[in-house]
Protein backbone atom coordinates (compact mmCIF):
# COMPACT_ATOMS: atom_id res chain seq x y z
CA UNK A 1 0.00 0.00 0.00
CA UNK A 2 2.99 2.23 0.33
CA UNK A 3 3.51 2.53 -3.43
CA UNK A 4 1.95 5.28 -5.45
CA UNK A 5 0.98 4.29 -8.97
CA UNK A 6 1.42 7.88 -10.09
CA UNK A 7 3.09 10.90 -8.56
CA UNK A 8 3.15 14.32 -10.12
CA UNK A 9 4.81 17.43 -8.82
CA UNK A 10 4.34 20.81 -10.39
CA UNK A 11 3.40 18.98 -13.57
CA UNK A 12 2.37 21.14 -16.49
CA UNK A 13 1.83 20.86 -20.23
CA UNK A 14 1.65 23.77 -22.58
CA UNK A 15 0.50 23.72 -26.19
CA UNK A 16 1.64 26.95 -27.74
CA UNK A 17 0.64 29.60 -25.26
CA UNK A 18 -2.17 27.57 -23.70
CA UNK A 19 -1.60 25.47 -20.61
CA UNK A 20 -3.58 22.24 -20.94
CA UNK A 21 -2.45 21.33 -17.44
CA UNK A 22 -0.53 23.32 -14.87
CA UNK A 23 0.79 23.09 -11.36
CA UNK A 24 -0.47 19.57 -10.96
CA UNK A 25 0.79 17.93 -7.78
CA UNK A 26 -0.71 14.56 -6.98
CA UNK A 27 -0.06 11.17 -5.47
CA UNK A 28 -2.35 8.39 -6.65
CA UNK A 29 -2.16 5.43 -4.27
CA UNK A 30 -2.11 1.84 -5.44
CA UNK A 31 -5.08 -0.44 -4.94
CA UNK A 32 -7.86 1.88 -6.03
CA UNK A 33 -9.95 2.67 -9.01
CA UNK A 34 -8.99 6.29 -9.30
CA UNK A 35 -11.41 8.46 -11.21
CA UNK A 36 -10.06 11.48 -12.99
CA UNK A 37 -13.12 13.66 -13.42
CA UNK A 38 -13.62 16.96 -15.17
CA UNK A 39 -15.33 18.63 -18.09
CA UNK A 40 -14.03 18.31 -21.64
CA UNK A 41 -10.77 20.17 -22.06
CA UNK A 42 -9.94 20.01 -18.36
CA UNK A 43 -6.60 18.31 -19.05
CA UNK A 44 -7.53 14.71 -18.25
CA UNK A 45 -6.15 13.19 -21.46
CA UNK A 46 -3.05 15.35 -21.21
CA UNK A 47 -2.35 14.08 -17.71
CA UNK A 48 -2.89 10.44 -18.70
CA UNK A 49 -0.78 10.76 -21.84
CA UNK A 50 2.08 12.09 -19.74
CA UNK A 51 1.63 9.26 -17.24
CA UNK A 52 2.00 6.64 -19.98
CA UNK A 53 4.93 8.43 -21.62
CA UNK A 54 3.25 9.50 -24.87
CA UNK A 55 3.58 13.18 -24.03
CA UNK A 56 6.51 14.95 -22.43
CA UNK A 57 5.79 17.52 -19.71
CA UNK A 58 6.49 21.22 -20.27
CA UNK A 59 7.00 21.75 -16.55
CA UNK A 60 7.45 19.70 -13.42
CA UNK A 61 7.63 15.94 -13.44
CA UNK A 62 5.66 12.75 -13.18
CA UNK A 63 6.61 9.20 -12.17
CA UNK A 64 4.65 5.97 -12.17
CA UNK A 65 4.70 2.65 -10.32
CA UNK A 66 6.80 3.91 -7.46
CA UNK A 67 9.19 6.38 -9.04
CA UNK A 68 9.70 5.08 -12.56
CA UNK A 69 9.91 7.52 -15.46
CA UNK A 70 6.91 7.23 -17.79
CA UNK A 71 7.75 5.51 -21.05
CA UNK A 72 10.77 3.72 -19.57
CA UNK A 73 10.99 -0.01 -20.14
CA UNK A 74 10.03 -0.72 -16.53
CA UNK A 75 7.05 1.61 -16.71
CA UNK A 76 5.79 0.28 -20.05
CA UNK A 77 6.07 -3.23 -18.69
CA UNK A 78 3.74 -2.57 -15.77
CA UNK A 79 1.17 -0.27 -17.35
CA UNK A 80 -1.54 -1.08 -19.86
CA UNK A 81 -3.11 1.90 -21.56
CA UNK A 82 -6.42 2.05 -23.39
CA UNK A 83 -6.54 5.38 -25.17
CA UNK A 84 -9.61 7.43 -25.91
CA UNK A 85 -11.87 5.90 -28.59
CA UNK A 86 -9.87 2.63 -28.27
CA UNK A 87 -7.66 3.10 -31.33
CA UNK A 88 -7.06 -0.51 -32.36
CA UNK A 89 -5.78 -1.55 -35.77
CA UNK A 90 -9.14 -1.71 -37.52
CA UNK A 91 -7.92 -4.01 -40.28
CA UNK A 92 -6.59 -6.66 -37.90
CA UNK A 93 -8.68 -9.45 -36.46
CA UNK A 94 -9.01 -10.02 -32.73
CA UNK A 95 -6.66 -13.01 -33.10
CA UNK A 96 -4.08 -10.90 -34.96
CA UNK A 97 -4.31 -8.18 -32.33
CA UNK A 98 -3.74 -10.77 -29.63
CA UNK A 99 -0.73 -12.11 -31.49
CA UNK A 100 0.63 -8.61 -32.08
CA UNK A 101 0.24 -7.68 -28.43
CA UNK A 102 1.82 -10.94 -27.29
CA UNK A 103 4.80 -10.29 -29.56
CA UNK A 104 5.39 -6.81 -28.25
CA UNK A 105 4.93 -7.45 -24.54
CA UNK A 106 6.24 -9.87 -21.96
CA UNK A 107 4.10 -12.33 -20.08
CA UNK A 108 0.99 -11.92 -22.22
CA UNK A 109 -1.74 -14.16 -20.82
CA UNK A 110 -3.05 -15.75 -23.99
CA UNK A 111 -5.41 -18.24 -22.26
CA UNK A 112 -7.01 -15.41 -20.32
CA UNK A 113 -7.49 -13.33 -23.47
CA UNK A 114 -8.97 -16.21 -25.44
CA UNK A 115 -11.31 -17.24 -22.63
CA UNK A 116 -12.44 -13.70 -22.06
CA UNK A 117 -13.13 -13.01 -25.74
CA UNK A 118 -15.06 -16.28 -25.86
CA UNK A 119 -17.19 -15.19 -22.91
CA UNK A 120 -17.82 -11.87 -24.61
CA UNK A 121 -18.82 -13.60 -27.84
CA UNK A 122 -16.21 -11.71 -29.87
CA UNK A 123 -15.27 -13.78 -32.95
CA UNK A 124 -11.49 -14.14 -33.15
CA UNK A 125 -11.36 -13.90 -36.92
CA UNK A 126 -13.44 -10.76 -37.30
CA UNK A 127 -11.60 -7.53 -38.03
CA UNK A 128 -11.65 -5.06 -35.16
CA UNK A 129 -13.19 -2.40 -37.39
CA UNK A 130 -16.26 -4.58 -37.92
CA UNK A 131 -16.96 -5.12 -34.24
CA UNK A 132 -19.53 -2.98 -32.43
CA UNK A 133 -18.30 -0.08 -30.33
CA UNK A 134 -18.91 -2.04 -27.16
CA UNK A 135 -17.06 -5.06 -28.49
CA UNK A 136 -14.11 -2.93 -29.58
CA UNK A 137 -13.90 -1.42 -26.13
CA UNK A 138 -14.06 -4.86 -24.54
CA UNK A 139 -11.43 -6.19 -26.94
CA UNK A 140 -9.08 -3.32 -26.10
CA UNK A 141 -9.69 -3.88 -22.40
CA UNK A 142 -9.11 -7.62 -22.71
CA UNK A 143 -5.81 -7.06 -24.54
CA UNK A 144 -4.79 -4.61 -21.83
CA UNK A 145 -5.70 -6.94 -18.95
CA UNK A 146 -4.02 -9.94 -20.59
CA UNK A 147 -0.75 -8.07 -20.22
CA UNK A 148 -1.20 -8.54 -16.46
CA UNK A 149 -0.44 -4.90 -15.73
CA UNK A 150 -0.04 -3.44 -12.29
CA UNK A 151 -1.70 -0.25 -13.44
CA UNK A 152 -4.48 -0.02 -15.97
CA UNK A 153 -4.92 3.42 -17.49
CA UNK A 154 -8.20 4.10 -19.29
CA UNK A 155 -8.84 7.37 -21.09
CA UNK A 156 -12.59 8.05 -21.40
CA UNK A 157 -13.23 4.33 -21.75
CA UNK A 158 -17.02 4.43 -21.84
CA UNK A 159 -17.79 7.83 -23.36
CA UNK A 160 -18.84 6.31 -26.67
CA UNK A 161 -20.71 3.30 -25.26
CA UNK A 162 -24.39 2.69 -24.68
CA UNK A 163 -25.52 2.09 -21.07
CA UNK A 164 -25.39 -1.71 -21.28
CA UNK A 165 -21.93 -1.80 -22.86
CA UNK A 166 -20.88 0.75 -20.27
CA UNK A 167 -22.03 -1.45 -17.44
CA UNK A 168 -20.38 -4.55 -18.92
CA UNK A 169 -17.12 -2.72 -19.45
CA UNK A 170 -16.95 -1.47 -15.88
CA UNK A 171 -17.88 -4.96 -14.64
CA UNK A 172 -14.83 -6.37 -16.45
CA UNK A 173 -12.63 -3.71 -14.90
CA UNK A 174 -13.95 -4.43 -11.42
CA UNK A 175 -13.53 -8.19 -11.83
CA UNK A 176 -9.90 -7.75 -12.85
CA UNK A 177 -9.34 -5.38 -9.98
CA UNK A 178 -10.77 -7.84 -7.46
CA UNK A 179 -8.96 -10.85 -8.94
CA UNK A 180 -5.50 -9.41 -9.61
CA UNK A 181 -5.28 -6.33 -7.49
CA UNK A 182 -4.58 -4.19 -10.52
CA UNK A 183 -4.81 -0.47 -9.83
CA UNK A 184 -6.95 1.50 -12.24
CA UNK A 185 -6.68 5.11 -13.30
CA UNK A 186 -9.52 6.20 -15.52
CA UNK A 187 -10.73 9.49 -16.82
CA UNK A 188 -14.30 10.36 -17.52
CA UNK A 189 -16.66 13.23 -17.90
CA UNK A 190 -19.58 10.89 -17.26
CA UNK A 191 -20.11 10.74 -13.53
CA UNK A 192 -22.89 8.19 -13.24
CA UNK A 193 -20.78 5.14 -14.03
CA UNK A 194 -18.13 6.05 -11.45
CA UNK A 195 -20.45 6.09 -8.48
CA UNK A 196 -20.06 2.45 -7.60
CA UNK A 197 -16.46 1.88 -8.66
CA UNK A 198 -14.26 4.82 -7.80
CA UNK A 199 -12.38 4.62 -4.54
CA UNK A 200 -10.22 7.63 -5.19
CA UNK A 201 -11.18 10.84 -6.92
CA UNK A 202 -9.25 13.56 -8.73
CA UNK A 203 -11.26 16.52 -9.90
CA UNK A 204 -9.72 18.54 -12.71
CA UNK A 205 -11.00 21.80 -14.14
CA UNK A 206 -9.34 24.29 -16.46
CA UNK A 207 -6.07 22.42 -16.30
CA UNK A 208 -5.84 22.41 -12.53
CA UNK A 209 -6.51 19.95 -9.75
CA UNK A 210 -9.52 21.12 -7.72
CA UNK A 211 -9.91 18.20 -5.40
CA UNK A 212 -8.16 14.89 -4.73
CA UNK A 213 -8.70 12.21 -2.12
CA UNK A 214 -10.40 9.00 -1.11
CA UNK A 215 -14.05 9.13 -2.08
CA UNK A 216 -15.21 8.07 1.40
CA UNK A 217 -13.23 10.84 3.04
CA UNK A 218 -14.31 13.45 0.52
CA UNK A 219 -17.97 12.60 0.90
CA UNK A 220 -17.69 12.67 4.70
CA UNK A 221 -15.81 15.96 4.76
CA UNK A 222 -17.87 17.79 2.21
CA UNK A 223 -21.24 16.38 3.26
CA UNK A 224 -22.46 15.40 -0.14
CA UNK A 225 -24.62 12.32 -0.56
CA UNK A 226 -22.76 11.02 -3.57
CA UNK A 227 -19.93 11.57 -6.03
CA UNK A 228 -22.06 13.32 -8.60
CA UNK A 229 -23.23 15.99 -6.18
CA UNK A 230 -19.72 16.44 -4.89
CA UNK A 231 -18.24 16.83 -8.34
CA UNK A 232 -20.96 19.13 -9.54
CA UNK A 233 -20.59 21.33 -6.49
CA UNK A 234 -16.91 21.77 -7.25
CA UNK A 235 -17.27 22.20 -10.96
CA UNK A 236 -19.97 24.85 -10.44
CA UNK A 237 -17.38 26.92 -8.65
CA UNK A 238 -15.71 27.40 -11.99
CA UNK A 239 -18.52 28.84 -14.14
CA UNK A 240 -16.65 28.65 -17.43
CA UNK A 241 -16.89 24.87 -17.47
CA UNK A 242 -20.57 24.81 -16.64
CA UNK A 243 -21.25 26.76 -19.80
CA UNK A 244 -19.80 23.90 -21.79
Amino acid sequence: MSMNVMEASGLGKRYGSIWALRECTLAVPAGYVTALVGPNGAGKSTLLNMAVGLTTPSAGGVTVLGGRPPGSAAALDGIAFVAQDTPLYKNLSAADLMHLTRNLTRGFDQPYAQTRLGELGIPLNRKAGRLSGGQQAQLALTLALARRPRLLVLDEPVAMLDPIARHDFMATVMTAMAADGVSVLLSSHVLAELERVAGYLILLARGQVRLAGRVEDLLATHRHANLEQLALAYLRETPVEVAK
Partner: protein
Amino acid sequence: MTARTIPARPEQDARPRPVPWRRMAWVTWRQHRIALAGLATLLGALAVYLWFTGLQIHHAYAAAAACHPASSAACQNALITFDTTDGNTAETIATLLQVVPALIGAFIGAPVLARELETGTFRYAWTLAFGRWRWTLAKLTLLAVVAAAAAGLFSLLVSWYFQPFFADGSRIPLDPTLFDLRGSAFAAWTLTAFAIGGLAGMLIRRVVPAIAATLAVYAGLAIATALYLQQHYMAPLLTGKLNVPAAAWIVSQWWTRGGIRLSQSATNDVFQSVIEKIAPVVHSRAQKVQVFTADVPQYLYQHGYQQWTSYQPGSRFWPFQWIEGGWLLALSALLIAATVWLVRRRAA
Protein backbone atom coordinates in the same frame (compact mmCIF):
# COMPACT_ATOMS: atom_id res chain seq x y z
CA MET B 1 -14.96 -2.72 -2.16
CA THR B 2 -11.71 -3.40 -0.41
CA ALA B 3 -8.46 -1.88 -1.49
CA ARG B 4 -5.89 -4.54 -2.20
CA THR B 5 -2.18 -4.41 -1.81
CA ILE B 6 -0.02 -4.92 -4.85
CA PRO B 7 1.93 -8.15 -4.42
CA ALA B 8 5.63 -7.56 -4.05
CA ARG B 9 7.53 -8.23 -7.25
CA PRO B 10 11.15 -9.24 -7.65
CA GLU B 11 13.60 -6.39 -7.95
CA GLN B 12 14.62 -7.21 -11.53
CA ASP B 13 11.29 -5.81 -12.66
CA ALA B 14 12.74 -2.37 -12.22
CA ARG B 15 15.01 -3.05 -15.19
CA PRO B 16 13.20 -5.61 -17.30
CA ARG B 17 14.91 -7.46 -20.10
CA PRO B 18 13.89 -5.85 -23.39
CA VAL B 19 11.39 -7.69 -25.54
CA PRO B 20 13.50 -9.45 -28.22
CA TRP B 21 13.97 -7.60 -31.50
CA ARG B 22 12.88 -10.59 -33.58
CA ARG B 23 9.33 -10.21 -32.28
CA MET B 24 8.92 -7.26 -34.65
CA ALA B 25 9.34 -9.51 -37.68
CA TRP B 26 5.84 -10.97 -37.52
CA VAL B 27 4.32 -7.63 -36.50
CA THR B 28 5.93 -5.82 -39.43
CA TRP B 29 4.91 -8.53 -41.85
CA ARG B 30 1.32 -8.61 -40.59
CA GLN B 31 0.89 -4.85 -40.70
CA HIS B 32 2.60 -4.22 -44.01
CA ARG B 33 1.93 -7.37 -46.00
CA ILE B 34 -0.51 -5.58 -48.30
CA ALA B 35 2.08 -2.89 -49.06
CA LEU B 36 4.72 -5.57 -49.59
CA ALA B 37 2.35 -7.49 -51.87
CA GLY B 38 1.88 -4.26 -53.81
CA LEU B 39 5.64 -3.91 -54.11
CA ALA B 40 5.96 -7.49 -55.32
CA THR B 41 3.14 -6.95 -57.84
CA LEU B 42 4.64 -3.73 -59.20
CA LEU B 43 8.16 -5.10 -59.56
CA GLY B 44 6.87 -8.50 -60.72
CA ALA B 45 4.72 -7.02 -63.48
CA LEU B 46 7.56 -4.76 -64.62
CA ALA B 47 9.96 -7.70 -64.51
CA VAL B 48 7.72 -9.83 -66.72
CA TYR B 49 7.41 -6.97 -69.19
CA LEU B 50 11.15 -6.28 -69.17
CA TRP B 51 11.90 -9.96 -69.59
CA PHE B 52 9.78 -10.40 -72.72
CA THR B 53 10.66 -7.10 -74.40
CA GLY B 54 14.26 -7.61 -73.28
CA LEU B 55 14.41 -10.97 -75.05
CA GLN B 56 13.20 -9.30 -78.26
CA ILE B 57 15.80 -6.56 -77.91
CA HIS B 58 18.57 -9.07 -77.29
CA HIS B 59 17.48 -11.09 -80.33
CA ALA B 60 17.27 -8.01 -82.51
CA TYR B 61 20.71 -6.92 -81.37
CA ALA B 62 22.19 -10.39 -81.88
CA ALA B 63 20.81 -10.43 -85.42
CA ALA B 64 22.19 -6.97 -86.23
CA ALA B 65 25.55 -7.74 -84.64
CA ALA B 66 25.90 -11.06 -86.50
CA CYS B 67 25.46 -9.28 -89.85
CA HIS B 68 28.43 -9.89 -92.14
CA PRO B 69 30.44 -8.09 -93.38
CA ALA B 70 29.96 -5.66 -90.50
CA SER B 71 31.08 -2.59 -92.45
CA SER B 72 28.57 -3.08 -95.26
CA ALA B 73 25.77 -0.54 -95.69
CA ALA B 74 23.12 -3.18 -95.00
CA CYS B 75 24.73 -4.13 -91.71
CA GLN B 76 25.17 -0.50 -90.66
CA ASN B 77 21.52 0.11 -91.47
CA ALA B 78 20.47 -2.89 -89.39
CA LEU B 79 22.32 -1.46 -86.39
CA ILE B 80 20.85 2.02 -86.93
CA THR B 81 17.35 0.55 -87.17
CA PHE B 82 17.99 -1.33 -83.93
CA ASP B 83 19.20 1.81 -82.17
CA THR B 84 16.27 3.91 -83.29
CA THR B 85 13.30 1.54 -82.88
CA ASP B 86 14.37 -0.54 -79.88
CA GLY B 87 16.32 2.40 -78.54
CA ASN B 88 13.14 4.48 -78.41
CA THR B 89 11.28 1.79 -76.47
CA ALA B 90 14.18 1.52 -74.06
CA GLU B 91 14.27 5.28 -73.61
CA THR B 92 10.59 5.32 -72.62
CA ILE B 93 11.09 2.44 -70.21
CA ALA B 94 14.13 4.11 -68.65
CA THR B 95 12.03 7.20 -67.95
CA LEU B 96 9.24 5.13 -66.39
CA LEU B 97 11.64 3.19 -64.20
CA GLN B 98 12.99 6.41 -62.68
CA VAL B 99 9.63 6.72 -60.90
CA VAL B 100 9.76 3.28 -59.25
CA PRO B 101 11.94 4.20 -56.22
CA ALA B 102 9.76 7.26 -55.60
CA LEU B 103 6.61 5.11 -55.63
CA ILE B 104 8.15 2.62 -53.21
CA GLY B 105 9.23 5.39 -50.88
CA ALA B 106 5.90 7.17 -51.02
CA PHE B 107 3.55 4.22 -50.71
CA ILE B 108 5.54 1.99 -48.38
CA GLY B 109 7.74 4.42 -46.45
CA ALA B 110 5.41 7.35 -45.82
CA PRO B 111 2.50 5.43 -44.24
CA VAL B 112 4.66 3.55 -41.69
CA LEU B 113 4.42 6.34 -39.14
CA ALA B 114 1.85 8.63 -40.76
CA ARG B 115 -0.91 6.01 -40.57
CA GLU B 116 -0.22 5.29 -36.89
CA LEU B 117 -0.25 8.99 -36.08
CA GLU B 118 -3.28 9.75 -38.24
CA THR B 119 -5.48 6.95 -36.85
CA GLY B 120 -4.19 7.23 -33.28
CA THR B 121 -2.99 3.63 -33.13
CA PHE B 122 0.44 4.85 -32.05
CA ARG B 123 -1.12 5.26 -28.61
CA TYR B 124 -1.51 1.51 -28.59
CA ALA B 125 1.72 0.44 -30.30
CA TRP B 126 3.96 2.84 -28.42
CA THR B 127 2.71 1.97 -24.95
CA LEU B 128 3.49 -1.73 -25.31
CA ALA B 129 6.57 -3.10 -23.57
CA PHE B 130 8.61 -3.28 -26.78
CA GLY B 131 9.16 0.47 -26.58
CA ARG B 132 8.45 3.04 -29.23
CA TRP B 133 11.91 3.93 -30.49
CA ARG B 134 12.80 0.25 -30.83
CA TRP B 135 9.47 -0.32 -32.57
CA THR B 136 10.26 2.47 -35.04
CA LEU B 137 13.84 1.36 -35.66
CA ALA B 138 12.88 -2.28 -36.14
CA LYS B 139 10.01 -1.50 -38.48
CA LEU B 140 11.86 1.01 -40.65
CA THR B 141 14.98 -1.15 -40.86
CA LEU B 142 13.11 -4.31 -41.78
CA LEU B 143 11.01 -2.64 -44.46
CA ALA B 144 13.98 -0.67 -45.79
CA VAL B 145 16.06 -3.81 -46.18
CA VAL B 146 13.23 -5.66 -47.91
CA ALA B 147 12.51 -2.77 -50.29
CA ALA B 148 16.17 -2.20 -51.12
CA ALA B 149 16.82 -5.90 -51.65
CA ALA B 150 13.83 -6.21 -53.98
CA ALA B 151 14.98 -3.14 -55.90
CA GLY B 152 18.53 -4.51 -56.08
CA LEU B 153 17.35 -7.79 -57.59
CA PHE B 154 15.09 -5.92 -59.98
CA SER B 155 17.93 -3.70 -61.17
CA LEU B 156 19.93 -6.79 -62.21
CA LEU B 157 17.18 -7.46 -64.72
CA VAL B 158 17.19 -3.80 -65.77
CA SER B 159 20.95 -3.97 -66.37
CA TRP B 160 20.50 -7.04 -68.53
CA TYR B 161 17.67 -5.33 -70.43
CA PHE B 162 19.80 -2.34 -71.43
CA GLN B 163 22.96 -4.33 -72.03
CA PRO B 164 22.74 -4.33 -75.89
CA PHE B 165 22.72 -0.53 -76.03
CA PHE B 166 26.01 -0.46 -74.14
CA ALA B 167 27.40 -3.29 -76.27
CA ASP B 168 26.71 -1.46 -79.53
CA GLY B 169 28.15 1.79 -78.20
CA SER B 170 24.96 3.86 -78.58
CA ARG B 171 25.02 4.41 -74.82
CA ILE B 172 28.05 5.38 -72.79
CA PRO B 173 28.58 3.56 -69.48
CA LEU B 174 27.84 6.71 -67.44
CA ASP B 175 24.73 7.59 -69.45
CA PRO B 176 22.84 9.85 -67.02
CA THR B 177 19.37 8.53 -67.86
CA LEU B 178 20.40 4.95 -67.13
CA PHE B 179 23.00 5.41 -64.39
CA ASP B 180 20.47 5.34 -61.53
CA LEU B 181 18.76 2.21 -62.81
CA ARG B 182 21.83 -0.01 -62.77
CA GLY B 183 24.49 -1.24 -60.39
CA SER B 184 24.03 -0.34 -56.75
CA ALA B 185 22.29 2.97 -57.47
CA PHE B 186 18.76 1.68 -57.97
CA ALA B 187 18.67 -0.10 -54.61
CA ALA B 188 20.28 2.91 -52.95
CA TRP B 189 17.73 5.32 -54.40
CA THR B 190 14.90 3.04 -53.32
CA LEU B 191 16.34 2.95 -49.81
CA THR B 192 16.63 6.73 -49.78
CA ALA B 193 13.07 7.20 -51.03
CA PHE B 194 11.84 4.89 -48.27
CA ALA B 195 13.81 6.77 -45.60
CA ILE B 196 12.45 10.10 -46.88
CA GLY B 197 8.96 8.61 -46.67
CA GLY B 198 9.49 7.46 -43.10
CA LEU B 199 10.66 10.86 -41.93
CA ALA B 200 7.95 12.71 -43.87
CA GLY B 201 5.34 10.50 -42.22
CA MET B 202 6.68 11.33 -38.78
CA LEU B 203 6.85 15.06 -39.47
CA ILE B 204 3.56 15.44 -41.33
CA ARG B 205 1.54 12.79 -39.46
CA ARG B 206 -1.00 12.33 -42.23
CA VAL B 207 -0.76 9.72 -44.94
CA VAL B 208 -1.73 11.55 -48.11
CA PRO B 209 0.26 14.75 -47.51
CA ALA B 210 3.23 12.62 -46.43
CA ILE B 211 3.05 10.67 -49.69
CA ALA B 212 2.93 13.90 -51.70
CA ALA B 213 5.85 15.37 -49.75
CA THR B 214 7.89 12.21 -50.26
CA LEU B 215 7.37 12.33 -54.02
CA ALA B 216 8.29 16.03 -54.14
CA VAL B 217 11.41 15.74 -51.99
CA TYR B 218 12.58 12.63 -53.80
CA ALA B 219 12.12 14.25 -57.20
CA GLY B 220 14.03 17.33 -56.07
CA LEU B 221 16.91 15.27 -54.71
CA ALA B 222 17.11 13.00 -57.76
CA ILE B 223 17.04 15.91 -60.22
CA ALA B 224 19.59 17.95 -58.24
CA THR B 225 21.87 14.91 -58.08
CA ALA B 226 21.65 14.27 -61.80
CA LEU B 227 22.14 17.94 -62.73
CA TYR B 228 24.70 19.14 -60.23
CA LEU B 229 26.27 16.29 -58.31
CA GLN B 230 26.96 13.19 -60.38
CA GLN B 231 29.49 14.80 -62.70
CA HIS B 232 31.60 15.88 -59.70
CA TYR B 233 31.92 12.49 -57.98
CA MET B 234 35.55 12.48 -59.15
CA ALA B 235 37.63 15.24 -60.69
CA PRO B 236 37.02 15.10 -64.46
CA LEU B 237 39.86 14.40 -66.85
CA LEU B 238 40.92 17.09 -69.30
CA THR B 239 42.02 16.68 -72.88
CA GLY B 240 43.04 19.18 -75.52
CA LYS B 241 42.67 16.68 -78.31
CA LEU B 242 39.82 16.68 -80.78
CA ASN B 243 39.28 12.95 -80.39
CA VAL B 244 37.66 12.41 -77.02
CA PRO B 245 37.51 8.72 -75.94
CA ALA B 246 34.30 7.17 -77.23
CA ALA B 247 33.01 6.01 -73.82
CA ALA B 248 33.60 9.36 -72.16
CA TRP B 249 30.84 11.29 -70.45
CA ILE B 250 31.54 14.87 -71.47
CA VAL B 251 31.16 17.34 -68.63
CA SER B 252 32.00 20.48 -70.56
CA GLN B 253 33.77 21.67 -73.72
CA TRP B 254 35.25 25.00 -74.66
CA TRP B 255 37.63 26.58 -77.16
CA THR B 256 40.76 28.59 -76.48
CA ARG B 257 42.93 30.77 -78.65
CA GLY B 258 46.45 31.37 -77.45
CA GLY B 259 45.50 29.96 -74.04
CA ILE B 260 42.58 32.33 -73.61
CA ARG B 261 39.13 30.81 -73.21
CA LEU B 262 36.50 31.93 -75.70
CA SER B 263 32.95 32.64 -74.64
CA GLN B 264 30.12 30.66 -76.18
CA SER B 265 29.04 33.52 -78.42
CA ALA B 266 32.63 34.20 -79.52
CA THR B 267 32.98 30.50 -80.37
CA ASN B 268 29.77 30.62 -82.40
CA ASP B 269 31.02 33.68 -84.31
CA VAL B 270 34.32 31.96 -85.10
CA PHE B 271 32.51 28.83 -86.31
CA GLN B 272 30.18 30.92 -88.49
CA SER B 273 33.01 32.81 -90.15
CA VAL B 274 35.03 29.62 -90.77
CA ILE B 275 32.01 27.87 -92.29
CA GLU B 276 31.49 30.79 -94.65
CA LYS B 277 35.13 30.59 -95.59
CA ILE B 278 35.58 26.85 -96.20
CA ALA B 279 32.07 25.56 -96.96
CA PRO B 280 29.75 28.42 -97.94
CA VAL B 281 27.18 26.06 -99.46
CA VAL B 282 26.07 22.91 -97.66
CA HIS B 283 24.20 20.33 -99.74
CA SER B 284 23.15 17.65 -97.29
CA ARG B 285 22.68 16.92 -93.63
CA ALA B 286 25.57 14.45 -93.69
CA GLN B 287 27.81 17.11 -95.18
CA LYS B 288 26.74 19.60 -92.55
CA VAL B 289 27.71 17.14 -89.80
CA GLN B 290 31.03 16.55 -91.53
CA VAL B 291 31.70 20.29 -91.71
CA PHE B 292 30.79 20.92 -88.08
CA THR B 293 32.55 18.01 -86.46
CA ALA B 294 35.61 17.61 -88.64
CA ASP B 295 36.38 20.31 -91.20
CA VAL B 296 35.89 23.38 -89.04
CA PRO B 297 37.72 21.97 -86.00
CA GLN B 298 40.61 20.87 -88.23
CA TYR B 299 40.82 24.34 -89.72
CA LEU B 300 40.72 25.95 -86.29
CA TYR B 301 43.48 23.69 -84.92
CA GLN B 302 45.65 24.78 -87.81
CA HIS B 303 45.01 28.42 -86.95
CA GLY B 304 45.94 28.48 -83.27
CA TYR B 305 42.65 27.45 -81.74
CA GLN B 306 42.25 24.49 -79.42
CA GLN B 307 39.26 22.61 -78.07
CA TRP B 308 39.31 21.47 -74.44
CA THR B 309 37.09 18.76 -73.05
CA SER B 310 36.60 17.80 -69.45
CA TYR B 311 35.10 14.35 -69.19
CA GLN B 312 34.47 11.34 -67.03
CA PRO B 313 35.89 8.18 -68.62
CA GLY B 314 33.63 5.14 -68.96
CA SER B 315 35.95 3.13 -66.73
CA ARG B 316 34.63 5.13 -63.78
CA PHE B 317 31.22 3.44 -63.88
CA TRP B 318 31.75 1.31 -60.79
CA PRO B 319 33.60 3.93 -58.74
CA PHE B 320 30.71 6.30 -59.48
CA GLN B 321 28.19 3.62 -58.53
CA TRP B 322 29.89 3.05 -55.18
CA ILE B 323 30.16 6.76 -54.51
CA GLU B 324 26.48 7.29 -55.24
CA GLY B 325 25.44 4.15 -53.36
CA GLY B 326 27.62 5.18 -50.44
CA TRP B 327 26.30 8.65 -49.89
CA LEU B 328 22.72 7.56 -50.42
CA LEU B 329 23.18 4.78 -47.87
CA ALA B 330 24.65 7.27 -45.40
CA LEU B 331 21.80 9.71 -46.06
CA SER B 332 19.20 6.97 -45.57
CA ALA B 333 20.78 5.90 -42.28
CA LEU B 334 20.75 9.51 -41.17
CA LEU B 335 17.09 9.99 -42.14
CA ILE B 336 16.04 6.82 -40.32
CA ALA B 337 18.08 7.83 -37.28
CA ALA B 338 16.40 11.24 -37.31
CA THR B 339 12.98 9.59 -37.51
CA VAL B 340 13.76 7.30 -34.58
CA TRP B 341 15.10 10.26 -32.62
CA LEU B 342 11.91 12.24 -33.28
CA VAL B 343 9.76 9.32 -32.17
CA ARG B 344 11.82 8.86 -29.05
CA ARG B 345 11.56 12.43 -27.90
CA ARG B 346 8.27 13.25 -29.46
CA ALA B 347 6.11 15.76 -27.63
CA ALA B 348 2.50 15.24 -28.71
